[in-house]
Each structure stands twice: as C-alpha cells, then as structure tokens.
C-alpha cells in the first residue's frame, strides 16, 4: 500500500479552510439560486462542488411574495422571492436525506424574524446528519420584519450572531448586507459576536418601474439586485472586510467565470459563492471548479490557497 502514488488526489490542490471546515475546493453555490441542489442533479456533477448552500430556511413555512417576483435589469436582476420556503422542520424531513447523501458539505442558510427565531432554527438543526455549517442571512431585503434592521445595525448583527452560535453545533457563517455605510463595522461586529466566517454580499436593494402601467414591476415594490452588475461592489466589500477581520471571508456577487472567482480569492476571499450565474448556465459552478483547477496547474501553484489575499497594492 505504501507504493500507491496519491499525488493525483491532491494535485491540483484546491482545498481551502473555512475555519474548522475544510472543503475540497473554494466553489459554493449561493443560497436561493440552487434550490435544494437536487434540481441540478441531471445537469452537473454535484460531487464536484466545494459546498452547497441551500435556499434560506425560516422557522415556519413562508409562502413568499406575490408575482412578479423577478425582473431583469442591465447585467443583473432584481428578485423579491420573499423567502418562500418549507420551514425548518419540513426542510429536515423532506430535503436533508437527499442532501446528506451527496457527501458534500451542506450549509443551511437561515433567516428569522427575531433573535429567538434565529436561535431556534439553529437548535432544530443540531445533530441533523449532513449539515456542515449554518449561513445566517441577516440581510434579506425582501422581508418586512427584522431582516433588514439586523443586517444594517452592527450591534444587532453581533447579537444575532451570538444567538445562532449559542444554538448551533456547526460552524456559523454570517452573510452581510451591502446596503450599509461601512461594511467593516458590521463585519467586525459579527466577528466579535463569534462568527466563524463571513460571507458577502447579499443583494443591493433596487427597484424597477413599468412605464406603461406606471407601477413598480415587482409586486413587492423593491427587490434585491444580483448578477454581474454588482460584482464591482462585491469585490470592493470583500477586499475591505478581508482586510478588517481575521476570520475567513467568502465572496459572492456577480461571479460568472473562473476569472471572476479568482479575483475574489485575490481580494481575500477563502471561498466564493455562485448565485445568479446558475440560472444562465446550470453547469457554471462545476465549470468554475474545473477552471480553477486548470489555473492552479497552469500557474504551477502549490495550492489554490497560495493566491488567497494575494492582491498587490501599489503604494507608489
């Protein structure tokens, strides 16, 4: 057995660490854009993913917003899904078996209306097989209560983080809203609150108007802007936050290509999430894993980790 050459297993070495969680490669699918993964099983090889983050789960089922819920904008889209989901109990009973069977890390995105709800969702997920982490959504613009205030007020963000940490038995990633004056304040607050990692950005709040009807296009009036349009904002915030905290940062916002993904790693992200791009090319996440792999080989990198935060800034 000692003669088996294992280099093929670790070369190219794409593994990254999100705190105590080691994942096979830095590519995750973003919450709300990949269903419960099963939707993609015939379209790509799910086993190639670094991790799957599932649609946001609340304590009780939510019907979501009335239609229209989405509208395309320039190089982006607005969504006001309104966190339609089956609630944590049905999520565990109906969705987790399949997800656990995939043998890839599953991160559950959660959202509550109150501190107590956040903590309770985390508690219900305790001991459920297959869950590798929790992503706390404190930033969804599409629910009226709580959500927004939690994400824009650093001290509230810290308190929510603490509540989830107390309830959870897995690492906790907190997902930040970009709709704030100083993202580093919120980031440091959730770090102090005990977050194991930070993901950003959620969507920017936007609006679209139908000139013919003179009404907002979305029934919910406002929605969350995602897609390539927001990539410059996401990259800037990832860079700022990665420079401000010492926990791992996961970058998300407008990633469509391997190059996009690598730029986020250079900016300081330990991993990335792919959102809207899944709608355009359902195989995109696998293709980006392949692309990153090729990059590590072509550039002769010891591992993908060697470029994380590798951005050079000219002080000249």
């Amino acid at each position: 057995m000692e003669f088996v050459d294992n280099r093929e297993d670790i070369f190219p070495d794409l593994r990254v660490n999100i705190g105590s969680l080691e994942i096979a490669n830095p590519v995750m699918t973003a919450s709300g854009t990949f269903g419960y993964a099963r939707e993609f099983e015939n379209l790509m090889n799910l086993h190639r993913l670094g991790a799957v983050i599932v649609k946001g789960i609340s304590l009780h089922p939510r019907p979501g917003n009335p239609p229209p819920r989405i509208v395309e904008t320039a190089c982006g889209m607005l969504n006001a899904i309104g966190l339609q989901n089956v609630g944590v109990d049905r999520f565990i009973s109906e969705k987790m078996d399949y997800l656990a069977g995939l043998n890839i890390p599953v991160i559950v995105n959660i959202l509550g209306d109150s501190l107590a709800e956040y903590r309770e969702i985390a508690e219900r997920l305790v001991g459920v097989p297959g869950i590798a982490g929790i992503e706390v959504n404190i930033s969804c613009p599409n629910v009226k209560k709580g959500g927004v205030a939690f994400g824009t007020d650093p001290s509230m963000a810290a308190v929510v983080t603490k509540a989830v940490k107390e309830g959870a038995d897995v690492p906790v990633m907190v997902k930040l809203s970009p709709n704030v004056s100083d993202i580093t304040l919120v980031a440091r607050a959730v770090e102090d609150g005990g977050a194991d990692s930070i993901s950003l950005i959620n969507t920017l709040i936007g609006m679209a108007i139908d000139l013919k009807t003179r009404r907002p296009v979305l029934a919910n009036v406002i929605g969350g802007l995602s897609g390539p349009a927001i990539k410059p904002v996401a990259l800037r915030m990832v860079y700022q936050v990665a420079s401000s905290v010492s926990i791992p940062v996961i970058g998300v916002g407008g990633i469509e290509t391997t190059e996009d993904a690598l730029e986020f790693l250079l900016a300081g992200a330990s991993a990335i999430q792919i959102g809207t791009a899944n709608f355009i090319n359902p195989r995109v996440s696998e293709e980006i894993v392949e692309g990153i792999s090729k990059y590590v080989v072509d550039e002769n990198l010891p591992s993908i980790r060697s470029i994380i935060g590798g951005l050079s800034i000219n002080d000249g």
Partner: protein
Amino acid sequence: MSQYQEKATVSRVEQLSAKNYRLTLDSPDISGAAKAGQFVMIRTGLAKDPLLRRPFSIHQTSANGQFQIYFKVVGRGTDMLARVKAGEIMSVFGPLGRGFRIKKNSPAIIIGGGLGIAPMLFLAKSICRLKTDCSNDHIILGGRERSEVEPLVNDFRQFGLRLGLATDDGSYGHQGYVTDLLKSLDLHPGYTVYACGPEPMMARVYSICKSGSMQCQVSVESVMACGMGACLGCSRMTKKGTYTHVCLNGPVFNAEELIWNS
C-alpha cells in the same frame, strides 16, 4: 427527466410576418426528449446583456433532431433572436416543464391565440400520432389579425383535424374570438380542451369548459429566471391558496387549479 444544455446550430430562420419569426435549431438531445407543451430557455446574445435566458415553447420537433420555436419580437431579447442567422450557434436549455397530458380517449379541442399558437403545432402532431385518427378533434386558431394566423395554417392542415379560424378584425376567418368558435361546437363533457394564449382568452375558455364540465388544460406564462425550479421566481397563486411554479409544475396546468380573474 432529462434536460440538456445544448449548443444548437440555427439551421433556418423564417420571418412569418412583420414581427413574428420561426427558428429551426439542430438540437438532437432536446428535440429527442421534448414533449408537447414543454419549453426551452434560450440565451439570445453572447454578452452579459440581456443577462437571462428567455423561455420559448417548443413549436414542433422533427425526426432528424431539430426543433422549432415561433416567436414575436417584443423586447431586447427577442429582437436579438430575430437577427440570428443560419449557421450561428446558440445555447439552448431544455426541454423544461410539464407539457400537455394528452387524453387518448377524449376528443380534443386545441385552442391557440396569438403567440399561444406556438406550442399547439407540437400538441396537434402528438395527439394525431397517439390517436392515429384525429379527424374528430378540433383546432381553433385566433389572433388580432390575418398575419398572426395565416402563416401557420398550412402546418396545421396536414393532420386532417377540423380547423376553425378567427381574427379580432375579421381579416381572416371568423370575425371575433376563438371562444365564439368554441361555443359554436357541439360541446359535451367528454371533450378535453387544450388552450394557450392571452390570459383573458384562457379565462374565457376555462369558464366555458367549466359550465360544460369539460377538462381544460392551459399553458400559462410567467417571468422566469432559471426555468428549472432553482429561483422560485415564476410563482403563480393556485386555488388552494399556495404558490405553484410555472417552470416546474407548468407551464401546462389543469385550468381548475389556477385562479382566473374575469
């Protein structure tokens, strides 16, 4: 359920009227798997704008690995699609959704209004193939004016089913609604009505079916980002008070499951 993301070569572009086009695409996997009433999502350009794919019903498939879409230029995506040239390659994703559930033992009335005619050619073909004889089935095509209906009529004639035609302005066929023609038939509860067209048309069709105790299947539209259940964008309220998703549970629904304003 097999879905494919295919690089399809455009083999033919037909302009059927001022704004209506028909594309023929070489796409063996999709055309092989497609069922009447299903749709595809097409990327209309190479760049990041327009960003999202656009949904189009499968107009018909052919045994040699091709399928067609029939569409109208209404905005930027369809405008780009109308400029496509034979030989170009497009990214096509499908077949998607639940198509029509063909009732083999029930006489069919197929109703297509405007662009709603698009999926009905595939449906008519499938019904006739399944039944071998469909001379007791009906098809009713309607539109605002001649150019919305006439260019497609020959394609429907080949099956030998009874054809009714209507235009709002009377420039072709009966002057009035497809529902006038529907009502003029000797309707009985055994019929299954399959309809696709503007919402008000489908609402009227459904109300006729309801009073006549006929089965009614409709193909509805919704704004879509993904077309395959990932985004939850394409919601539509059901009679049960819960949302259903047009891309997964539709686009073809039993009309009675949905809420109709009329």
